[in-house]
């Protein structure tokens, strides 16, 4: 169970440009749930993801994973609980290292790292099996430098890397936004497959309403640092993109109306 409890995040505190990126957000994600997050630019969806990843610290409130408050830990100290795939396809892998070295790094995510060998026959076999399942022929290129792969291939490998070890939550930060449509579809389909097989808990930020509804079991819409909409189950199943769009407009409209009231 992932619990975000009345979290506030403010940027540029004390400056004229101060902005409340998260304004008292509370969210509970039970184990095994796949949550999609949508919202316009600056709505706070990336801040929400970075709050769980440890790139952003809460000014108020708590971040709790399975009863343990991890809110003060830096990103590297949360790696045992949190796995992530970045938006930039090149960000999740080391281009100067080989494919197998990258996989070996990820296979030890959040673990102690001693002077034992980083690679051995057993690990290579395991990596080859995982990559063979992708059908990209990468299993024969374990020794190749990561920098030789295309952005799409690297994002696929990043996704595999993120799921090599068990985690409490998988964070997907618009991980298909920078890919061409065909590759994006492949990565999304792979995501669904891996998540279903391992029963992972996922938070996926996306720009696409279609993606938000087609994947996972619950959708959250962020607006001005708050959760404006939270749908799951039956109600979500009946929603289409036009409905979501209408709700989106409504949320924005209401806020405007509120402002008008205040100003009047």
């Amino acid at each position: 169970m992932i619990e975000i409890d009345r979290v506030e995040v403010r940027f540029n505190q004390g400056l004229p440009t101060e902005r409340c990126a998260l304004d008292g957000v509370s969210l509970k994600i039970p184990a095994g749930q796949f949550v999609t997050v949508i919202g316009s630019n600056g709505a706070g969806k990336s801040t929400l993801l970075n709050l769980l990843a440890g790139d952003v610290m809460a000014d108020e409130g708590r971040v709790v994973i399975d009863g343990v408050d991890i809110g003060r830990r830096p990103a590297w100290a949360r790696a045992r609980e949190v796995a992530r795939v970045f938006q930039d396809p090149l960000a999740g892998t080391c281009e100067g290292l080989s494919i197998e070295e990258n996989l070996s790094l990820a296979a030890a995510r959040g673990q102690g790292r001693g002077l034992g060998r980083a690679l051995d026959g057993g690990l290579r076999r395991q990596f080859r099996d995982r990559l063979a399942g992708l059908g990209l022929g990468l299993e024969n290129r374990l020794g190749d430098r990561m920098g030789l792969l295309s952005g799409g291939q690297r994002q696929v490998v990043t996704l595999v890397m993120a799921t090599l070890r068990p985690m409490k939550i998988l964070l997907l930060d618009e991980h298909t936004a920078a890919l061409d449509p065909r590759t994006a579809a492949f990565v999304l389909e792979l995501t669904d497959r891996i998540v279903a097989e391992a029963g992972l808990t996922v938070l996926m930020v996306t720009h696409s309403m279609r993606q938000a509804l087609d994947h996972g079991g619950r959708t959250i819409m962020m607006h001005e640092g708050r959760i404006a909409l939270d749908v799951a189950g039956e109600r979500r199943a009946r929603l289409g993109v036009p409905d979501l769009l209408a709700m989106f407009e409504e949320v924005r409209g209401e806020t405007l109306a509120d402002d008008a009231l205040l100003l009047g």
Partner: protein
Amino acid sequence: MTVFALLGALETGLLFGLVALGVHLSFRVLNFPDLTVDGSFPLGAAVAGIMIASGIDPWLATGAAIMAGMIAGMLTAWLTVRLGILHLLSGILVMIALFSINLRIMGRPNIALIGETTVFTPFQGMAPSHLYPLAFLVTTGVVMLLLGHFLTSRLGLAMRAAGNNPRMAGANGIDTGWMTILGLGVSNGLVGLAGALFAQSQGAADVAMGIGTIVIGLASVIIGETLAPGRGVIFTVVAVVVGSILYRLSIAVALNAEFLGLQAQDLNLITAVLVGVALVLPRLRRRLAPRRGRARTPVTRTVQ
């Protein structure tokens, strides 16, 4: 060139190979341009020198020199990682501070070690003089083996990731700050070792002996990389030491070529020209063979 000059170049090349390995670790593996080495090289010499002159066991003195170098490197990394000082500046600050510290350690600008028992004393007695570089070959060889082993271990891989992609390293649970501190410690420990051995083989420790250490180290790394571009870790470790030996050989050739009329004081000029050439060489090579470069690209990008 005489056999004596050749052996001398080989010997110095192997010894400064340790510096080159240290510089490779900071500049290339950790992507941290560390200038501390100009201070940690004479630091190693100073610590070993004063201890040996006081009658302490030379092996113990050499060990202490390694420790001193490690502390200096970790201090530089700490200034950058924890206090946020620009990496180049941290190195310069520690380097300049070490000049005073080295004078304090030695109590005078230089210490003569001629006649003292050093780690090389046993070798001097038993082998013919042309086998003398063997001692350096063994030392540098052992360090190369250890470093190669380290860089392919889980910890070493984590360090390489921290230098290559800090964000990815962090997401995989690697404390990149600690990796930088540890890596610069190991790097300057190697440089301190080189300083201690250099002082013992030359028979003196001098506070000014560190000037230009970083350039020599960098020259060796660049020459090594030019010879063996984009190979594996172990290969690069060997190439860097070979680069160091080649650097010394080219210097010896340049100084020994009568028709060039170069003298010992031209050393820094020759170094600058050598490093310049080594830096431009890969680019020249690419320009001369553009077809081969282009033909390889589609092969590597077949899928998506």
